[in-house]
């Protein structure tokens, strides 16, 4: 199996080449098979790998393949090599599994494109899969970075897929550049790692971390902080989250795959992957947790008032990513990854469902022009959406409950009651805005035109099947990680997920030991979070089903707050004012004043003008009158003589 690891990324890459070079000529039919097919095949290999891995004794579950030495110059060396351990295997399963479903879904969703666009779409999507696999499989930080940038590129390309609309292209560009700001930190982190360890390979760095770095020392702190800057960019945390809502300009399956299920979680993966470093830098971990919690709450509040269905989901994603960082930030890496997985299921589903709705409404995304779709013949969409909404809201026994609850519990357990409180409030808000979305979309009166109403239809099977699969996963996906607090009373259902990842996070601070004694408070907290989720659910029902005028009244009542949220705290505007405009002004200054004015104008052309001026002077002396020539001559002669006789 180890020798075949390369196949995992190579299959999607083959798809890229085929779709990119021949796709347009091959036609949509072929592409619609090849595109998803390669990812499916890749999934199959991943599955085989997974089983190969499970076949190994716990603790030795790691496969490694070095393909070739990529960069070797001076002391620096980096290889193209793949490392599959339980953590990467989990990620690979998500990437190829969810990825495959979304590929399939896309076949239906993108059917309106012409052959060229269709091929282009699948080229990008395959390329994304390839890059994402590199990211999760890379055996060194640099290769991780390669995948990191690669997925960023695909994100750029796919957000701007419908490039003839200037806004889409701009959104893509924004995503790329904001990500680059994060990458700056990531790169510095890599440099620090290299100059500290002399290597960037995980196999060299992670086991040596404790020996090389002083625990709690500045170097460990800075390494982790810079790496986290990269994660902040990629995973859309404060303050670099601004690109993600705009990224909704891309086709909806793209939002599902890239901006919900996989790419944006890369930051979480990266922190988990380098947990050995983070454990040496508690201060950095605290920052991670703080940022995560803050982002979770912050994004959730914005999500409350958005009217664009995808924007709500986008803010929801940001918020959920915040949860994950909260989890890894309190060193509950397993919990973070667990939430990552369940989130991939239900958030992908939410997006796909939203896509289905949008598809049915021919591109309409404004929830104020939806409503009552539950009665208009979209059963699959409706039911799967409901499952996903319940899951994300943390209603047991759906997937979201287990993972979210685990994070909250670990936060509490790690001694961060404030962070727990933030997470707790956010859980309520999550239920509120998600059900707001759900009710606005599927319940109440249809608020679109009659013409639209007549055309509402259920999506084709290529879209429906992935919805169903994901729906099922949203429901049962959480059961792989049932906490001991529930599992044990139910007859000793073990936490399969935790056990699976244990070899990776063996050094996890709150290890298995804590699990043995189940503190009663865990149940209390669990109940509280279920309660607040239910409260949110009911609140949404009250405001959007029972008394639809309530939101308007509230918005008038708390006008300032409402405007603040509607305006998304005006963060984009503030950035524009504080960063973008000054930078552009400075650039223009550098060009016009420094370059044109000082360097070229004063120094370069000024010298030229000086010489020309001198030329004029010399020329004026040459009067044409021989008398003046004689005078100059005599003056010169006199000067020479005076030098000799007087000097």
């Amino acid at each position, binding site marked *: 199996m180890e020798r075949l690891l390369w196949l995992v990324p190579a299959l999607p890459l083959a798809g890229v080449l085929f779709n*990119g070079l021949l796709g*347009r000529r091959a036609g949509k039919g072929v592409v619609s098979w090849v595109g998803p097919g390669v990812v499916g095949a890749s999934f199959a290999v991943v599955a085989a790998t997974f089983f190969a891995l499970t076949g190994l004794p716990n603790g030795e579950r790691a496969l490694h393949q070095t393909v*070739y*030495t*990529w*960069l*070797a*110059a*001076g*002391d*620096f060396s980096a290889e193209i090599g793949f490392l599959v351990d339980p953590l990467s295997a989990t990620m690979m399963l998500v990437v190829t599994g969810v990825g495959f479903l979304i590929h399939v879904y896309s076949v239906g969703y993108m059917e309106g494109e012409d052959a*060229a666009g269709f091929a*282009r779409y699948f080229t990008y999507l395959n390329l994304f899969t390839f890059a994402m696999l590199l990211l999760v499989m890379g055996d060194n930080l*640099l290769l991780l*970075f*390669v995948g990191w*940038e*690669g997925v960023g*590129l695909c994100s*750029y*390309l796919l957000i*701007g897929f419908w*490039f*003839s*609309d*200037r806004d*889409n*292209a*701009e959104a*893509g*560009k924004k995503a*790329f*550049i904001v990500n*680059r*700001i994060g*990458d*700056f930190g990531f*790169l*510095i982190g*890599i*440099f*620090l790692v*290299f*100059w*500290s*360890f*002399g290597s960037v390979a995980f196999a060299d760095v992670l086991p040596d971390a404790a020996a090389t770095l002083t625990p709690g020392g500045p*170097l460990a702190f800075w390494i982790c902080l810079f790496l986290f800057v990269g994660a902040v960019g990629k995973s859309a945390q404060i303050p670099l989250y601004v690109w993600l809502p705009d990224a909704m300009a891309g086709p909806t399956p793209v939002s599902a795959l890239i901006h919900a299920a996989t790419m944006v979680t890369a930051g979480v993966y990266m922190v988990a992957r380098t947990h050995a470093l983070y454990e040496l830098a508690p201060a950095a971990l605290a920052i991670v947790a703080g940022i995560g919690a803050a982002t979770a709450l912050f994004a959730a509040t914005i999500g409350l008032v958005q009217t664009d269905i995808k924007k709500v989901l986008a803010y929801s994603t940001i918020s959920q990513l915040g949860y994950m960082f909260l989890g890894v930030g309190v060193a509950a890496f397993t919990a973070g990854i667990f939430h990552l997985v369940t989130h991939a299921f239900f958030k992908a589903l939410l997006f796909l469902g939203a896509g289905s709705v949008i598809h049915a409404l021919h591109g309409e995304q404004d929830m104020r022009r939806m409503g009552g779709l539950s009665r208009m013949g979209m059963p699959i969409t409706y039911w799967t959406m409901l499952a996903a909404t319940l899951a994300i809201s943390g209603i047991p026994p759906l997937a979201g409950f287990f993972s979210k609850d685990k994070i909250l519990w670990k936060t509490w357990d790690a001694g961060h009651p404030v962070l727990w409180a933030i997470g707790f409030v956010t859980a309520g808000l999550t239920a509120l805005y998600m059900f707001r979305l759900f009710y606005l979309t599927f319940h109440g009166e249809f608020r679109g035109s009659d013409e639209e109403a007549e055309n509402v239809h259920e999506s084709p099977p290529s879209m429906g099947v992935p919805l169903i699969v994901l729906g099922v996963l949203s429901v049962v996906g959480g059961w792989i990680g049932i906490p001991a607090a529930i599992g044990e009373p139910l007859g000793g259902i073990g936490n399969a997920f935790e056990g699976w990842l244990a070899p990776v996070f063996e050094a996890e601070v709150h290890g298995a030991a804590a699990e043995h004694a189940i503190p009663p408070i865990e149940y209390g907290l669990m109940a509280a979070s279920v309660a607040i989720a239910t409260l949110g659910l009911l609140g949404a029902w009250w405001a959007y089903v029972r008394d639809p005028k309530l939101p308007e009244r509230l918005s008038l009542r708390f006008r300032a707050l409402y405007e603040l949220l509607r305006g998304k705290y005006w963060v984009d505007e503030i950035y524009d004012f504080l960063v973008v405009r000054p*930078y*552009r002004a*400075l*650039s223009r200054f*550098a*060009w016009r004043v*420094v*370059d044109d004015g000082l*360097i*070229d104008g004063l*120094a*370069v052309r000024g010298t030229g003008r000086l010489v020309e001026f001198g030329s004029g002077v010399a020329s004026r002396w040459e009067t044409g009158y021989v008398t003046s020539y004689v005078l100059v001559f005599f003056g010169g002669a006199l000067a020479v003589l005076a030098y000799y006789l007087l000097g």
Partner: protein
Amino acid sequence: MDVPYLSAILFLPLVGAAMIAGIPGDRRMAIRQSTLAVTTLHLLLALPLWWIYEPEGAAYQFVERVPWVEAYGIEYHLGVDGVSVLLTLLTLLVMPLAVLGSWRYIQEHVKEFHVLLLVLTTGMLGVFFAVDLFVFYVFWELMLVPMYFIIGIWGGERRIYAAVKFFLYTFVGGLIMLVGILALYFYHEQATGTFSTSLVDLVALDVPGGLQTWLFLAFALAFAIKVPMFPFHTWLPDAHVQAPAAGSVILAGVLLKMGTYGFYRFAMPLFPEATRTFLPVIAVLAVIGILYGAMVALVQPNVKKLVAYSSVSHLGFVMLGLFAYTATGIQGSVIQMINHGISTGALFFICGMLYERAHTYEIDRFGGLSASMPVFATIFMIVTLSSIGLPGLNGFVGEFLILVGVFGSHPWLAGLATIGVILAAYYMLRMFGRVMFGPVGEESEGLPDLDRRELAILVPLVALIVWIGVYPKPFLERTAPSVDRLLAEVRVDAEPAGDLLAGTDEALEEEAR
């Protein structure tokens, strides 16, 4: 080696030029085809260098050494090291493409153009082959002339201004370097009693500090202008904007490398102490160049000018890497030289193709080209990404190695330079987006996609972009021993890896004390 291989490579274009000069001027197609044949043949002639050059072998290989001006101890002394081999091959690859790129662009004085192109080739190769400083200088100036004509005759509206500016700028630096060469030469005579302008002899000298400073400055000025380093760069935008496509390509692809190559091959080994003295200055200027070039590029309304300023930024990386004084950084620089030649060369070809279609370089007059030119869009995208430094493409390899290398010795500068990576994405993607995306612009209605000739130009470049990005090993391998040799010559022990503090500025300062 008994066969004067390098001489054959060096003078083949002159023979070709003489042949082409014999074709009647109105037989344009024949002239183009013959030049293409000559340049391709030339590439094939030199291609074996890739294999028969032995990286681990002698410092200079294929050496030819014949007395030239005996009275002065000047020799016709040629030889190549790993870096020259790569730059030579880059040059020879660019030339046939430049001919192809001029197929339609050049319609007037076709014969003169192609003759000059070939003469230019000889000038450029001479610079890369020269081991004797006099020979180096001769070729350094020689290549100025054809380039001056290429800009001045076939350039845009303000071509004369640009051509003269280009000429004067380079000429100033060159002449001051000449004085430096002579001072070094006489110092060698004083120290050893013999006259020589050979690099091999001069490197062996131990030039005293004060003199070294002045000489280094004389050399550095010439090279800094050519690179061009901030603040000696203002000739570049003018020259690039006005030059015809092929001219810009060669300018960016090869000529600018001569500055950095000059530092690598001459200034640094000849004046190791002065190099170290000025290291902070040059490194800081390089970083300023990186950031400043990126900033100014952002607000350019003209595609070519934007690319020109991006060159300032990219060459800043090369300089920074050279002055990292670590094997990693210098290797990165070397790769980055090649990369910049390929990527920026390709960008200028692309600018030329845009111009051939729309007759403008103004960014705002384009828009939405992706729709009508999908193949073009793909290639343009790849080249843009290469220029941004996306991993997997060539630009990343160079930039990353440079930054890693520099980080060891100057963490703060490396950090600042890394910001350049962000800025590059900003200006390149902004330009790309405006030209290729959005609603169809006024000049962009229904423009045809690439034809075969244009594909033939761009595909090899794209292939190289990917090759170096994915598998740079062959390139790195060929230059590593040369770079190590340079480091040995400049007598700086490579900083032990993993010792972070040893490489910080404070440590260097302490060492200076």
